[in-house]
């Protein structure tokens, strides 16, 4: 039985391409990458990053100072774009603040605050102004956003590495289905920190060059930061908005940091998404790949996509635009998928010069303009945690 679709009536996103929807759409249209050589203060790594400008200088929300950290700054900056705050106010009037659920994904939350506190230790003690509950903790951005938006409903913090903010759509759908809430704000926020830059480097998964998903010479990720938020409602009120048609979640049960080589877990997530959407593989027009640009990730995802879809749907990874935004990749690429649906755009697989001849999916290197009806977005994370989502036109 297909699930009841939900409409996505409003959304906003901020990443290395800029603030708000127009910045992302313009860059996707114009093949403009937001990646740059790593210039994050206090780093000495040879790599490229997808950094959001202005976080260091911005004024944080007065009255919520305890939550001030890079991750919550990025969340706050993103929520101030595209009239998101007034739209939430209207939704609160429509539904009641306690009937709107909040579902956010993050991988590392505000761990940069703990990294900085460790650098400021005196006699082994951390500085007195360190407040991990409001910054580093996985729930920090949920506490901050719930207070900022004045919401009173359920509040879920999902942290499953790089699938975190894809799974928020599945969770929100289920909560609305059970009647625990009537509408949902879903989102994800992940920000640059030394833990991920040096951690992925220790695993030899960071590229010294700009990342090239599906390329013969791909050799790792570029790390980025991003935030995105969307309002989900039942379709009866908003017939003209794009829809969440299906979701699929699975585990690889294979390895903590390497995907199943045949992409079994990824394939299961995509199959479940198709089942819940009531669609056949041939009815998907475009796949926004997880496409991180590591050797093994792209190979495994390629196997899964090819086994299920053959060479039919056009596929591309948008990591070449934003870098891998980790816990925010799911929301970022879901919202890219909506921009693609609404604007008839298939983004190119930026930076890739020669597609790996061992990979078989139908990768489009150049962006295309054509009307599309259904998009599938993949997000896969450490721990073998997979999520696929299908979005459709109104």
């Amino acid at each position, binding site marked *: 039985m297909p699930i009841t679709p939900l409409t996505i009536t409003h959304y906003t996103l901020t990443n290395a391409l800029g603030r708000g929807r127009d910045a992302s759409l313009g860059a996707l249209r114009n093949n403009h990458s937001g990646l740059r050589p790593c210039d994050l203060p206090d780093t000495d790594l040879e790599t490229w990053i997808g950094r959001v400008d202005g976080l260091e200088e911005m004024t944080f929300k007065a009255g919520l100072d305890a939550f001030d950290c890079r991750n919550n700054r990025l969340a706050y900056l993103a929520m101030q774009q595209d009239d998101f705050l007034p739209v939430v106010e209207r939704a609160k009037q429509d539904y009641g603040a*306690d009937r709107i659920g909040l579902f956010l994904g993050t*991988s590392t939350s505000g*761990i940069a605050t*703990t*990294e900085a506190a*460790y*650098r400021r*230790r005196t006699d*082994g*003690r*951390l500085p007195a102004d*360190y407040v*991990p*509950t409001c910054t*580093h*903790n*996985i*729930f920090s951005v*949920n*506490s901050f956003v*719930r207070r900022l938006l004045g919401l*009173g*409903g*359920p*509040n*879920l*913090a*999902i*942290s*499953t*590495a790089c699938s975190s903010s894809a799974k928020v759509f*599945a*969770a929100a759908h*289920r*909560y609305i*289905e*059970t009647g*625990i809430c009537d509408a949902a704000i879903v989102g994800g926020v992940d920000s640059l920190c*030394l*833990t991920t830059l*040096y*951690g*992925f*480097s*220790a*695993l*030899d998964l960071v590229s010294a060059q700009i990342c090239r998903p599906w390329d013969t010479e791909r050799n790792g990720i570029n790390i980025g930061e991003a935030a995105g938020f969307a309002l989900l409602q039942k379709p009866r009120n908003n017939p003209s908005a794009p829809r969440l048609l299906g979701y699929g*979640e*699975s*585990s*690889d*049960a*294979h*390895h*903590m940091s390497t995907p199943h080589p045949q992409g079994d877990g990824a394939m299961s997530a995509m199959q479940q998404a198709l089942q819940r959407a009531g669609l056949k593989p041939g009815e998907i027009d475009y796949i926004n790949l997880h496409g991180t640009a590591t050797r093994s990730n792209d190979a495994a995802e390629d196997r899964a996509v090819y086994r299920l879809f053959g060479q039919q749907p056009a596929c591309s990874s948008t990591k070449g635009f934003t870098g891998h935004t980790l816990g925010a990749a799911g929301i970022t690429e879901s919202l890219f998928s909506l921009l693609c649906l609404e604007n008839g755009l298939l983004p190119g697989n930026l930076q890739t010069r020669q597609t790996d001849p061992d990979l078989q999916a139908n990768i489009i290197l150049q962006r295309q303009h054509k009307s599309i009806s259904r998009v599938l977005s993949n997000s896969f*994370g*450490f*721990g*073998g*945690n997979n999520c696929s989502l299908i979005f459709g036109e109104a």
Partner: protein
Amino acid sequence: MIKVRLHSVGILAPGLAGWRETASLLRKETAYTASGLSPLKPTTLKPNERRRTTNTIKLALEVADEALKQWPNPQQLISVFSSSEGDLEIVDQICTALSQQGRPVSPTQFHNSVHNAPAGYWSIGADSRQASTSLGGLNGCFAAGLMEASVQTAIEGKPALMVCYDLPPPKPLADFIHVRTPIAVALLLSADNTQGNALADIALRPGAGAEENRMTDDTLEALRLAAPAGRSLPLLQAVANRTTAKLSLPYLPDLGLQLEVSPC
């Protein structure tokens, strides 16, 4: 309200070594005796993996093992892992390494640092390819995990394993993060109310107003407050005593999780 059946419980905390012992204590048949945790040796992990994992991962998997002892096919279980703090032992080691020359972050520690590391190891050990979600939620993370597992079970029609766990932080973080005792609790839930040999039926919904339930015994009340998973004790007390009870568990600052528990 969402309705689920509770099939089994796993629990580990100082003085609470397993469900049988804990249930007897909660029925006041035995007295609480404080004692340290025995060495953690979850059977879900192969011995070589056990060496590569941390106390946090082992604690979570040990209670999962206990809850699933009688369950024939863990491969079919959805899993929900919930923890306020994640793995602070690793955070301490990584942040220490990042403050040193050359920043020698261990690759194994880094991949174990993700919040879903215990869930990842569990899915590998149990060979479960089902959906798995890892949550935070501060002191409300037991309620958040119970609600999420119940919602998934109700909607997806599959049984679910829910594990809530936290360990006290290592020294530099201990002044700032107030988890004082290692406590982990695992629940095996299903939406199938036909299957017998279960512990209790639970109906739940988030709701404001009701005061959170406390333990009347001072020692158990201290344990309830010593770690987020301790907030499960009022529920476990009703389950152990096979009583019908209306309970409120802490969830969010202005919203509780309201439960109706009945024996089955």
